[in-house]
């Protein structure tokens, strides 16, 4: 029997970049009707297999408006991972992302896995943030990066698989599930268990 690990994942990013859409897509595609749904989309859970473990993501959405910024520490405390979302059609949202990364580095949990999601990649014809910028930035901070489209269900699973892989298994066995997916950095990091 596989052990279930609960991993708190915090969603950060400007309002309107599609944070909750990404999660809704992730949780509701292949929806398992045996698992009771949560009461709303701000908090969702999904369990995925990873190596010989099961990762249960407890996904905490945050409000992206500036006025709620100061509440963020409550949401990202104790997180094993943070998904920071920007909108590839809005340069501003990418700048906000950098602020979040900085805040996480300064005040976030040690060893938090950071994953950058450039959402709305289906709208690449009005793109403002080049993919190259995002990749370079992600590499510089050792983060997972992937361009997603919640609308078209592109790379959503991959985003969370990328996070899963960066969570070191509890025992020291090899994860046995390495790289087939287009992701940036895969530097293994040591993660504190979230609870």
């Amino acid at each position, binding site marked *: 029997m596989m052990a279930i690990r*609960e991993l708190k994942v915090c*969603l950060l990013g400007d309002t309107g970049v599609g944070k909750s859409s990404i999660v809704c897509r992730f949780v509701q595609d292949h929806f398992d009707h*045996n698992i009771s749904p949560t009461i*709303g989309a701000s908090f969702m859970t999904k369990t995925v297999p990873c190596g010989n473990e099961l990762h249960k993501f407890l996904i905490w*959405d945050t*409000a992206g408006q500036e*006025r709620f910024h100061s*509440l963020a520490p*409550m949401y990202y405390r104790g997180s094993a991972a943070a998904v920071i979302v920007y909108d590839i059609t809005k340069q501003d949202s990418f700048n906000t992302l950098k602020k979040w990364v900085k805040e996480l580095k300064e005040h976030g949990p040690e060893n938090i896995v950071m994953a950058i999601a450039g959402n709305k990649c289906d709208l690449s014809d009005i793109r403002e943030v080049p993919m190259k910028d995002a990749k370079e930035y992600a590499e510089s901070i050792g983060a997972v990066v992937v361009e997603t489209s919640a609308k078209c269900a592109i790379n959503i699973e991959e985003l969370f698989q990328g996070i899963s892989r960066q969570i070191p298994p509890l025992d020291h066995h090899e994860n046995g599930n390495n790289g087939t997916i287009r992701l940036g950095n895969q530097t293994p990091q040591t993660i504190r268990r979230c609870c």
Partner: protein
Amino acid sequence: MASLTMAARCQDKRGSFFKLIDTIASEIGELKQEMVQTDVSLEDGLEPTEIPSMVKDMDNVCPEKKDLKSCPRDSGYDSLSNRLSILDRLLHTHPIWLQLSLSDEEVAGILQSQPPGIFLVRKSSKMQKKVLSLRLPSEFGSYLKEFAIKESTYTFSLEGSGISFADLFRLIAFYCISRDVLPFTLKLPHAISTAKTEAELEDLAQLGLNFWNSPADNKPLNPPAPHRPLPSDGVCRASRQLCLINGVHSIRTRRPSELECSQTNGALCFINPLFLKVHSQDLSGSLKRQSTRTPEVNGTESPRSPPPRPPPPSINSLPTSPQLSRTETQASMPETVNHNKHGNVDLLGKKPTPIPPPRLKKQASSLEGEGSNAKTLPVIRPCLSQEPTSGTAGSPGDAPPEQNLAACKKTLPTSSDSQLQWNGGRQRLSDMSISTSSSDSLEFDRSMPLFGYEGDTNSSLEDYEGESDQESMAPPIKSKKKRSSSFVLPKIVKSQLRKVSGVFSSFMTPEKRMIKKIAELSQDKRTYFGCLVQDYVSFLQENKECHVSSTDMLQTIRQFMTQVKNYLSQSSELDPPIESLIPEDQIDIVLEKAMHKCILKPLKSHVEAMLKDFHTADGSWKQLKENLQLVRQRSPQDLGVFAPTPDFVDVEKIKVKFMTMQKMYSPEKKVMLLLRVCKLIYTVMENNSGRMYGADDFLPVLTYVIAQCDMLELDTEIEYMMELLDPSLLHGEGGYYLTSAYGALSLIKNFQEEQAARLLSSETRDTLRQWHKRRTTNRTIPSVDDFQNYLRVAFQEVNSGCTGKTLLVRPYITTEDVCQLCAEKFKVEDPEEYSLFLFVDETWQQLAEDTYPQKIKAELHSRPQPHVFHFVYKRIKSDPYGVIFPNNEEENVSTS
């Protein structure tokens, strides 16, 4: 919170639950086959209407068995009159066979010298789980085999078996009767299986592990049942035929002594919730109405409602009984019997008659209760004592149960000659019903929602049953209705769920039993745990000034609960040990609930008052009040709301929920209500737009709603939950919405005209950070020393009687210092006239100045026999009763 996850789990495991139900159904079917009939003419007179209906229920459970003839069965009277059931024997003697800490070698050593079939239950360090170690006969090659015990969320089962049990005792009892996956049935040591009274069993249990090498074990005892008239014995053992020919011969009146040996204060009548559940399911249409009730409403206002439950068992009425295990098992006796009776009733005749309303059934069952209570009623005498037979038979393959069962099956004929085999497997039968339906109602569980969950799946899947604990709970009806409407399930799923919930609720009972037991223990000052809790509670209540802030206070309470939980899980004061009743991964959850009940419940009003004081004193309520006013005047858009908001009616509904929340003492239940509020908000948001909303939209709406509710008390409610909630729940859904509610309140508190849509004060940020640190760091394992810091001292004055105070007294504080403290606390003007006395065993001892009261207390607690003692601060010269006791024993006490 917990119940949400419970619901989740339930859904999650729906498949396996159905499987479980099927298993149980087929078990019941087998039971019917295996059942040995008894003379039921007596019972027939009593309950003519209910029998067929119950049988009908049974058939619904196992339609595939419809072709089988059901047969009447043991009334249970006989086991009452002259023997203890296997379950009782197991309960009494667990110190012998339940040896969780035993090593491989020790077990091997013990079992080697035992006859085959003898077993021990222990925790294997190799497998990291409980195992059943069974002595095998020589032809098996090895003399010892271990069977792993699987613990799921609510049940225990043997690895590889499909049959699950609510607790270890029932599991073992079952395997004493049926081998299932074992090579043969388990056997109780001779001394245990032949003991005739509970007292005998208690004496054996006293030996504990030493039983195995004591003369009590192995020594062949005298033939059993000397008090039973030989003729009857002979008749029954020899021939079933006789019973068939003359079923009446075995009925006779019990002697009072026989009754007393097995029965405590009045019989109880319990309905097996499983059967009840199934029954109510048939009647779901007519019963639906009841689903809106709280479990504790005994329904005096409805014609349909059941009569009041029978009087509680003797737990509380035996205050002098020093041994909990004894109390418990005594209490269990009537239950067992009644359970048997129900099994009996369930399986009687098969006439297709209309189903009576539940009321009839319950009336009948209360009649039964009276019946077994009325000692003048004639009772059925057993023909054959199964147990002694199996007890004396030494060979392992010797399985009289199977033989008899087989015999029963063969002869299982039409109902007309069903009286044929009523004797053979009687004992087994009664036990069987106990073990197979691991769901039977449980002796301690007064608060079990016996009737309340009928027809309302959600109530048992969710947390409602738990709220029966909360006496002050106001309007559950309302929220209940609401809730069920929010779960729209297809009918078929509903009915399946309902079936599950029946099983589910019944599996919950060991948990509730345990919680009740812990709560009782916490009231008992003769136990160390009881002292801890009582001292702490009274200390807090009497020392209002001991905390500098609300956070400080709540934090210490949380810490204390964690420490006590730790103590309980390690101590031996719980008897039977919690591991035998609660699967391992549930122990912490159960202990947490128990802590709420025995610590938070008595402290609730005190904590509330204190929180209010703190917030009034520091001005934060005034600020909140002003800002609430301010925020309410703003439009939703000013708050960043761009989604539909609840209207006036919805806000009123939410307010009602928040008011209900205030009445709860359990932080988890409060969080449950918070989740309901959030769910309602989502419903409003989504109903009017059809899209899913994330935090960007939800948090502003939540802020708006909280402002509209205009309840200052919410502030303390949130604080209470945030500080006292079980840390393991902080990352889940409850933790999320709690965080959001806290955030919303913080926004409101800092909302000022000029900084609308501005940042929160840095102060709030700091507070949040500190809170996080606190809640994530204080997880050190406590030491027992931590709780020893309280001492209850009585103050006795000639004229004014006795007053008591709980003082903070650390272990190394001397009597001299305590005296000083007392002089201050009791405002004594001439302290040199007073001293600290220990009143124990009816004698007074003045404590010398250099002794340590806490050490003395510890010593008293560690004595094998519990002592009632008091520390009394009083005048040295004159005793209120005019007697002066010399303090000659003081040295003994203080040095030991």
